[in-house]
């Protein structure tokens, strides 16, 4: 007869070993193991309510703290407004011929996809990875590998589309999303200005780094980066962000870039899911 205490010890050891094996088995590929269970379907609606409450809190806190800065900001903005009015005429002329318009046109062309509007209901509680869940699932036709994007307003007032990530697992009324700055995510990209292409990967500290397939000659900080569609996960010409840093690799032949995403991943709330038929 084994004693009560010993039994618990034994169970914990066996469970620990089993879990270690499970980690190894489930990590390669999608963890579809638990999709059939009703776990997520019950918890997801509750999380949705709490997440909305959190959003309200966060916004009101921000406005509370910013009151003291408002006057200072107001003066600065007035000055800036006059300056910008002058520049505006010149800018209009420039924009007509620039890449920005071309990019926007391409994006509009690509919005023929069927999409679902969705809200983020919770985020990975840990501090290591950037994953979150959304409130649309298989009941709305969301499938694994669907693309998640966000509409954003830039300085020029153009509502471009920014890439957020892709859906990895789908439940009945919720889905897991992996962001492009997650360490397990990689995206093939194109530089809009000169069509150089390569692969972007997330880093542990939340930045996005990329390398090129071949030698590149003409790269500038601020170049716009879009998805290239290679690999057939992401559709082509989704806006990712701008190059913020260029570094030579150790062999001095190719370059490594850091991309500043168009999206603030900390403040995501509403996203769109593009349904791609593959």
């Amino acid at each position, binding site marked *: 007869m084994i004693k009560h205490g010993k039994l*618990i010890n034994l169970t*914990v050891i066996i*469970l*620990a070993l089993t*879990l*270690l094996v*499970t*980690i*190894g088995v*489930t*990590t390669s590929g*999608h*963890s579809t*193991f*638990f999709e059939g*269970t009703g*776990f*997520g379907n019950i*918890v997801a609606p*509750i*999380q949705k309510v*709490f*997440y909305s*409450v*959190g*959003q309200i*809190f*966060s916004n009101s806190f921000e406005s509370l703290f910013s009151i003291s800065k408002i006057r200072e900001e107001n003066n600065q903005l007035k000055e800036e407004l006059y300056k910008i009015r002058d520049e505006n005429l010149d800018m209009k002329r420039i924009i007509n011929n620039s890449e920005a318009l071309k990019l926007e046109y391409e994006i509009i062309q690509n919005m023929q996809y069927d999409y679902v509007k969705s809200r983020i*209901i*919770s*985020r*990975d*509680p*840990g*501090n*290591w*990875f950037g*994953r979150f*869940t959304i409130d649309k699932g298989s009941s709305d036709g969301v499938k694994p590998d669907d693309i998640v994007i966000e509409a954003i307003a830039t300085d020029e007032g153009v509502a471009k589309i920014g890439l957020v990530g892709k859906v*990895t697992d789908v439940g009945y009324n919720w889905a*897991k999303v*992996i962001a492009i700055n997650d*360490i*397990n995510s990689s995206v093939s990209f194109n530089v809009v200005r000169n069509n150089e292409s390569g692969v972007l990967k997330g*880093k*542990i*500290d*939340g930045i996005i780094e990329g390398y090129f397939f071949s030698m590149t000659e003409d790269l500038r900080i601020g170049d716009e980066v879009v998805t290239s569609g290679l690999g057939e996960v992401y559709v082509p010409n989704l806006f990712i962000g701008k190059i913020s840093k260029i570094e030579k690799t150790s062999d001095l032949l190719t370059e490594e870039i850091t991309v500043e995403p168009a999206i603030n991943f*900390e403040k995501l709330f509403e996203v769109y899911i593009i349904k791609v038929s593959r």
Partner: protein
Amino acid sequence: MKKTAWLFAIMILCFILQSSIIHFFRINGVAVNLVLVVLIVVSLQTNELVGASCGILVGILWDVFYTSGFGINTLILMLIGFVSGKLSERVYKADFLTNLYFTVLGTVFYHFIFFIIHYFLKLEASSILYMGKSIIIEMVLNIMILYPVYRVKGYFLRKYKVKY
């Protein structure tokens, strides 16, 4: 039995709060780990059986929703709950400092095991250097939230005259 059911409900509530509201109050991109703190306080007050099962419960929820490989958080939280429950017989658990030591050690233990497992799952070894600052910030935040959690625990114990 009824007491344990309440504890499970509290753990689930903490998990929901953790994944929804708490990340709006990130400092330097780091969120406090409420689940871990509450788990340690609960395990210290009860025994290893309750501690381990609370850890498993929250760990499973965490893994189902957010982890690509199932089991990492379940394993770590189960071990933390088990060990704090086991040691609770030998320490003076009513003392705040005991809870504080366990929280500090628990935070370090969590990230250490997390890193070890992910190292074998092809994570770069240098990532621990990036994470070092975050871990320290998280530890400070955990200690800050431990005090209210500890007081709430004391309040419940006195109000409902619960004995463990």
